[in-house]
């Protein structure tokens, strides 16, 4: 009597479960995939031992001078030991460099808090206000017994963090308004937004930075000047906003007409509709491309080097220009690459988890 009862459940075939099943479906599901798997394994085999050798086996960790480094080959950890403060904090006065360090930590902490759902309450605004005041006090000083440091001397990581945080914080709402404006039924508003978006997107960021730093002062009245850092910041915001606008517009267009009609039929006004119905859905759709914009904004801040602002990338360049340590650019750029990667990868992982959180139970 080994006849199965009708409707009784059976386990799936063994080949579809367990380790073998996993290997079959994930790595060797077709001849092409098998070849790709083997190719990838081969590349990893080439790269990883070489990297370990370069980073940890070859170098002499006791080396302290450039000459010793050159003898042993491999990654020169002595360079990082010697130059990391210049790269991280630029030409900020050496003895005061705990200030930008603390400022960076505060800024990162505030960003991390903003990412956690539990903090999405009114007091987050207060938290940011406190954080920004603290960052300002620490960076500028001039109060509480801290010596004054003008922002021309700021540099390295805190500068990159400041430029990108403010860049995102302002470009996002501005881009949102531009996207709504571009879909507006008022021809004037629409035209202004379209012209703005197309104009900005038609120009490279480098030229915008140049314009803000070289041309803008020509138009301003004598004796009136805007700080160089602020001008660069504004250029970054204006630039990113145009891209945010087009991305958000894509999300808005994906919302079915019925959602607008449902909201209309309840008598909701335009801004209420946008805030409660349309934007929450549209923004959820565009999280991946939006985060892409934020990540490239973070990296694009390195372009401010062309107008002589001392960000992380410029600091890395300066570290290599020291005559004693000439020729260690691999060390220097690898160092900042890791820093950039940590930030960008965190943003990217966060966006994935945010998508998953917002996705619960909301399938149409």
């Amino acid at each position, binding site marked *: 009597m080994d006849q199965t009862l009708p409707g009784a459940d059976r386990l799936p075939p063994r080949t579809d479960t367990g380790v073998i099943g996993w290997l079959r479906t994930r790595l060797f599901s077709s001849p092409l995939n098998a070849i790709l798997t083997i190719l990838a394994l081969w590349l990893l085999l080439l790269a990883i031992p070489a990297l370990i050798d370069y980073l940890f086996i070859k170098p002499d960790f006791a080396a302290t001078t450039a000459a010793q480094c050159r003898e042993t080959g491999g990654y020169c950890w002595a360079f990082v030991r010697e130059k990391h403060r210049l790269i991280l904090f630029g030409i900020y006065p050496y003895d005061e460099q705990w200030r930008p360090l603390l400022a960076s930590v505060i800024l990162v902490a505030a960003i991390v808090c903003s990412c956690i759902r539990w903090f999405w309450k009114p007091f987050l605004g207060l938290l940011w206000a406190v954080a920004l005041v603290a960052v300002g006090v620490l960076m500028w000083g001039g109060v509480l017994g801290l010596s004054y440091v003008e922002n021309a001397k700021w540099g390295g990581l805190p500068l990159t963090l400041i430029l990108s945080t403010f860049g995102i914080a302002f470009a996002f709402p501005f881009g949102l308004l531009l996207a709504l404006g571009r879909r507006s039924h008022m021809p004037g508003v629409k035209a202004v937004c379209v012209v703005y978006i197309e104009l900005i997107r038609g120009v490279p960021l480098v030229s915008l930075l140049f314009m803000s730093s070289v041309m803008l002062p020509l138009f301003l009245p004598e004796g009136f000047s805007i700080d160089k850092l602020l001008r660069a910041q504004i250029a970054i915001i204006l630039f990113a906003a145009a891209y945010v606008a087009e991305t958000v517009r894509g999300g808005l267009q994906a919302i079915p007409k019925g959602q607008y009609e449902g909201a209309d039929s*309840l008598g909701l006004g335009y801004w209420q509709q946008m805030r409660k119905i349309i934007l929450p859905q549209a923004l959820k759709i565009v999280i991946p491309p939006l985060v892409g914009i934020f990540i490239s904004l973070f990296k694009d801040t390195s372009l401010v080097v062309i107008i002589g602002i001392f960000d992380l990338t410029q600091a890395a360049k300066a570290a290599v220009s020291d005559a004693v340590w000439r020729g260690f650019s691999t060390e220097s750029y690898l160092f900042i690459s890791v820093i950039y990667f940590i930030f960008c990868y965190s943003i990217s992982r966060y966006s994935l988890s945010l998508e998953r959180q917002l996705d619960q139970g909301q399938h149409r």
Partner: protein
Amino acid sequence: MSEPIIRLKNVNKWYGQFHVLKDLNLDVAPSERIVICGPSGSGKSTMIRCINRLEEHQEGQIIVDGTELTNDLKQIEAIRRDVGMVFQHFNLFPHMTVLENLTLGPVWVLKRPKAEAEATAMKYLERVRIPDQANKFPGQLSGGQQQRVAIARSLCMNPKIMLFDEPTSALDPEMVKEVLDVMVELAEETGMTMLCVTHEMGFARKVADRVIFMDHGEIIEQNAPDAFFDNPQNERTKLFLSQILH
């Protein structure tokens, strides 16, 4: 007949070159229940969508509860507060729970306190017989349940007029009845003015005061349901009824 709550006077509308509504005249008395039927493309949905300005008419007058529909946004929003609408595809807000869907209008448009709005919402959810679904998202409900939520959402605004735009035609057959039952109950227990575009003739016979037949943007025939179904006057009406009543 008392002062009409909805009055359409020589209403005309075009989609591009296409003349959808041709010189429509219609008076609806308060508490009157009207069923509108007709072949697809006859303009029946367009007509009721003009009543809360989801569509704009180009000529003629539409007066709802004493207010004429013009381009004035404030007036349009005021009329929409008094006119509830139920759509063919429900148009619930998928990112909000059922309860949030129901309280959104009362809290943001009518400025009711949240607790009061939630109490009202639960009352109407019980009325449409799904109070246990309050904290689910619309996507987790069946079509019939979603449409009942949509009806409850409109009722929460305490409207004077309810418009139904083919409320059962996107539903699986076994769910049509649960929605119609709710609508019948609504018609019998409240004195609400109802305009319903539907082909559910059983429903029309049961609750309608008047059945309107539309074709090519015109009202061809209107009559009390029994007279309309048993003794249609116009040839087009006869043809249409022979096609839907097998």
